[in-house]
């Protein structure tokens, strides 16, 4: 799905988190929102997911206005920073949650839910952990379960907030490839937030560098590296 961000701004009280920003994300792209904390990248991601509403501007999905769509109507697969797995449910129930939450008319039967959950567990390469609770998983396993849970609703896009932030360096490297593979298999437009320029440059097709609520540069990793648009970008990517 193609995503168009048209002059979106966001204020919290009197402080501006985002100045009007515009951005066009091609369908099927793997996009990184890169910037230091306070740059507005997470706010922008939450606006895409419908968890936050912009003060002004529009969001367009495949050309049609999605600004007023509720979080449920967006159908965005959202992976939270600390994964936000339901701690009182097993991994299986976590992944099945979105299917069970559907209105009765479109809710798949139990056998179908089970089939889909198991297929997702295979996709994240953790076929044996359905009966476990989130607290019994490692950080990397939790991240992959969160990803499977987000994919279970057959989302129109995948949004990830610092998906590798809570992991140690080694696991982080492995899971980068994991995200790339899942993106390539599903073909979903994927946006992830990161403050790690290595991660953004290595993983994304398109990198959006942000600072202080503004977009500094949009481009392919190699272009940004070769021709940083501003002094901020040059400093940030060489750090």
């Amino acid at each position: 799905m193609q995503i168009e961000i048209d002059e979106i701004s966001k204020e919290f009280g009197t402080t501006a988190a985002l100045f009007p920003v515009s951005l066009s994300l091609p369908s099927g792209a793997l996009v990184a929102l890169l910037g230091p904390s306070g740059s507005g990248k997470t706010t922008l991601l939450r606006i895409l997911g419908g968890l936050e509403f912009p003060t002004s501007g529009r969001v367009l999905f495949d050309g049609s206005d999605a600004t007023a769509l509720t979080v449920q109507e967006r159908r965005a697969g959202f992976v939270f920073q600390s994964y936000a797995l339901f701690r009182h449910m097993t991994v299986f129930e976590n992944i099945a949650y979105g299917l069970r939450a559907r209105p009765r008319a479109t809710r798949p039967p139990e056998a179908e839910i089970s089939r889909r959950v198991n297929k997702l567990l295979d996709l994240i390469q953790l076929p044996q952990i359905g009966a476990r609770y989130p607290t019994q998983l490692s950080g990397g396993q939790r991240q992959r379960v969160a990803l499977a849970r987000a994919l279970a609703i057959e989302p129109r896009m995948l949004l990830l907030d610092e998906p590798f932030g809570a992991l140690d360096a080694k696991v982080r490297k492995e899971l980068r490839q994991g995200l790339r593979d899942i993106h390539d298999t599903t073909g979903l437009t994927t946006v992830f937030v990161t403050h790690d320029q290595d991660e953004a440059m290595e993983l994304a097709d398109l990198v959006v560098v942000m600072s202080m609520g503004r977009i500094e540069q949009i481009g392919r990793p190699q272009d940004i590296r070769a021709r940083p648009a501003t002094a901020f970008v040059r400093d940030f990517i060489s750090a």
Partner: protein
Amino acid sequence: MSDIPLAYVPKAFKPVATEVPWVRWLLITLVFLVLAVLLFAPLITVFYEALREGVGAALTSLTDKESLSAIRLTLLVAVFAVPLNAIFGIAAAWFITKYSFRGKAILITLIDIPFSVSPVVAGLCIVLTFGANSWVGSWLVAHGMPVVFAVPGIVMASMFVTFPFVARELIPVMIEQGKAEEEAALTLGATGWRVFFTVTLPNIRWALLYGVLLCNARAMGEFGAVAVVSGKIRGLTATMPITIEMLYNEYSSVAAFSLAAVLALLALVTLVLKTLLEWRFADQLAAQHRH
């Protein structure tokens, strides 16, 4: 350098955070002593005094019309006050922890008012607001719904006194848990109510249970506020604590202590219930806290 021994062997390994044995024993003894004097001795006395003239006498005094009416009234008050306070407490805690708004600190302070205001003052406020001399009260009386010196006033007074328990238990838990899980459920397509019942409620159930048990114990035991609003009408508006006091003042000590024993037993049952639930769900509790 050379005269430092290569392998220094300490005389005894001692954990840093442990007191010498006699201090430890002193502290333990002190705790038991205080518990015995303040908790066990009075409790045993209540049962001893109740049964002084035999089980038969105690039971006879309990099946007395007044005592039965007091027990019924106390249970009735709890049946109304506890669920209502549970709902209000959840709503208040939800509002305070999930939204940011102006005046939040004031609201949190307001919730604590019943803890700082004397119950007698609270009772008086209800009498002044809803009593026959106020315009609200006279309207209510004229329409056959008296509040003061009647059951609604007693329920109100009990609710006022026990209001903070549920909210106070829930607020820290809900703050600690944040709203990420609720947001995740929303992005997965769940409606607000579904999120509440499948994510919020299971996450706060233990805090809620503690709050409700405390609220219940206090609602059944409340004396001061109820004494003012109830008018202490025998067999009509006298709850268990009120009846106990009246019986005691009339030197009916077996009756007074029997009723007191029943009240204490109700509290003990709540405590046992809580312990049983904790024991039954120990695995889940542990799983939730391990992070």
